[in-house]
């Protein structure tokens, strides 16, 4: 994140402090403060600040998928929306999920979203009885230079077929 040139500066000299901030998990306005401690008797602490307004180009709603309690052996569906909030067309190059053995996705092939356009992706989960809890990721690959992949998590609690579910499948 930080690449300071070195710890000592001679009188009359300057030094460059390079700061890098990743924005992949940020959105909206934010401010990051970085503190330096120095041997300057008048300024033992100095503050550097970086602020920015991070614009989401691709938005996935919901941002987290909870299938809730679901029956083993049955098929359960959840739909998500992929939205292009940018000003240029966006290509979704690939969609995948893991664990892939129990998740099917429609569509999986490449598609293009015009600005402000959205498209539904259907997740189908077919849990096996041996797993009580399932945690997975849905990975959406894009042609965006700065955001080649975006992922969201999903979870489910698998119960035996005989028990009642607390949440209906969609």
């Amino acid at each position, binding site marked *: 994140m930080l690449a300071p040139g070195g710890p000592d*500066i001679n009188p009359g000299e*300057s*030094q460059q*402090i390079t700061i890098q901030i990743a924005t992949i998990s*940020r959105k909206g306005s934010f401010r990051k403060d970085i503190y330096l401690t120095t041997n300057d008797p008048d300024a033992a602490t100095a503050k550097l600040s970086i602020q*920015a307004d991070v614009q989401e180009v691709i938005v996935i709603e919901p941002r987290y998928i909870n299938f809730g309690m679901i029956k083993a052996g049955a098929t359960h569906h959840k739909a998500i929306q992929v939205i292009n909030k940018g000003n240029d067309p966006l290509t979704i190059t690939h969609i995948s999920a893991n664990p892939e053995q129990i998740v099917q996705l429609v569509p999986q092939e490449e598609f293009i979203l015009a600005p402000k356009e959205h498209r539904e992706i259907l997740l189908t989960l077919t849990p096996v009885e041996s797993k009580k809890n399932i945690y997975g990721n849905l990975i959406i690959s894009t042609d965006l230079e700065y955001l080649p992949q975006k992922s969201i998590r999903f979870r489910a609690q698998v119960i035996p077929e005989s028990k009642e579910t607390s949440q209906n499948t969609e």
Partner: protein
Amino acid sequence: MQRLHYILIAAFAAVVLIISNTYAAPKALIENPVFDAGQIPQGKKIEHDFIITNTGDEVLTYKIKGC
């Protein structure tokens, strides 16, 4: 008399040396400590170079906290 003269000069030099050592100190100057990157697309890395200058008369040392 000449010896007293030398003693006074030496004493004066010693006082000047002590005073200069007492007040010599580093001074950190960061001209633009706040950088506004404006609107940027999610995923794009923000990178900025801050310049820190030592305007004092002793070596300035610094450490970055919490990173």
